[in-house]
């Protein structure tokens, strides 16, 4: 499709989602009352903490599992997670930073040409699935890389996985 001008294909990572565990039970009420920049969602049982420095939104459960979203790179995700753990430590919990794992990376890429979705789907039968009533993009799954690409007709492509 785009063989010769591979040079100018900018692909931007827009979101990195990671999880880590603090090996201790966290008191959500205490975090909600004493922490800065926190939102307590009692009906679901979690606390949202938004950090400004690396722009991170973290979802904290009382079991000690934390999910971190909003980072722009894997490095930043790790920094943000560590900073978060430090925050919790300052609030008085015995936090140990374990099991850090990047779960999902979302990237956006733009093709300089438009794409004809029905023909594309016909040529890539098993991998591509297109349902115009449900979603205007073709969903192309690559099993080997465990990646899902959403291909829009304007040429922009979203890669997750």
């Amino acid at each position: 499709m785009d063989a010769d001008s591979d040079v100018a294909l900018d692909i931007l990572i827009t979101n990195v989602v990671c999880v880590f565990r603090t090996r201790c039970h966290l008191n959500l009420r205490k975090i909600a009352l004493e922490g800065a920049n926190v939102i307590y969602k009692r009906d679901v049982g979690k606390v949202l903490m938004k950090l400004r420095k690396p722009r991170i939104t973290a979802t904290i459960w009382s079991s000690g599992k934390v999910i971190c979203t909003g980072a722009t790179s894997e490095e930043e995700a790790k920094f943000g997670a560590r900073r978060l753990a430090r925050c919790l430590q300052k609030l008085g919990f015995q936090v140990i930073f374990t099991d850090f794992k990047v779960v999902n990376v979302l990237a956006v890429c733009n093709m300089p040409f438009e794409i004809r979705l029905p023909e594309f789907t016909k040529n890539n039968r098993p991998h591509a699935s297109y349902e115009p009533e449900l979603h205007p993009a073709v969903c192309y799954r690559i099993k080997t890389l465990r990646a899902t690409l959403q291909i829009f007709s304007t040429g922009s492509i979203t890669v997750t996985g």
Partner: protein
Amino acid sequence: SSLDVLPRVTCPNHPDSILVEDYRAGDMICSECGLVVGDRVIDVGSEWRTFSNDKATKDPSRVGDTQNPLLSDGDLSTMIGKGTGAASFDEFGNSKYQNRRTMSSSDRAMMNAFKEITNMADRINLPRNIVDRTNNLFKQVYEQKSLKGRSNDAIASACLYIACRQEGVPRTFKEICAVSRISKKEIGRCFKLILKALETSVDLITTGDFMSRFCSNLGLPKQVQMAATHIARKAVELDLVPGRSPISVAAAAIYMASQASAEKRTQKEIGDIAGVADVTIRQSYRLIYPRAPDLFPADFKFDTPVDKLPQL
């Protein structure tokens, strides 16, 4: 059967000869000499004689419902019905024999789903072949058990959608939603899961699939329908509407065709029939409006000329 190893009896005179069963009389007869060698074979003929002028509805030789062996593993069960006479009710007015014990328990859910499918198909007047196909799909999905957690109604609705697609007469998700209690989102999810579970794929929908239905519902004459079909097809060929759902394009084409003819329809009416918002029709219409003269078929009789078409 008498073709097996002759079970107990042979004709004493002709030990090798084949015995013929005469089921009417319950005998086994030697085919060589006609000797009756076995008797009291169970008679599988009819219990009562039926005459042609007798009450046609009650055929006493049939004693069961039509079997559905393809779908529910053979239905040879008997159910005790509710009593009819006075003797079947005890003092308080409750019936004496309470439950019809659930006979086909293993496939109760499946039979329930089949009933639901028939109801749904009935509401939109789908022919029997689509309903049969839906039943088959449902059975396959049910046996696979990969979608066991999902509501049966959702799976049934998704099977109905797939069956319509496979038969070449797709119905939009919104149309299936209208006859089902399941949300479009859930039907869409089940649809994708079923395709993955059964490892099939379906053809893409085209604008032409819906033209005849939408136009008939709006009461538009054949000319307008053909014109709209032509417009939509041309619009997709020329790629004037990239990324738009074929339903929206079809609706916009119908709007354009109807506005150019004597039978004008408003965007709201078309949106109502097609299940698209009228702003969506407006958007798609704006995309095809510039090339309007090219899109109409060559022999179309314009009631309102092309340049006077409304511009939104």
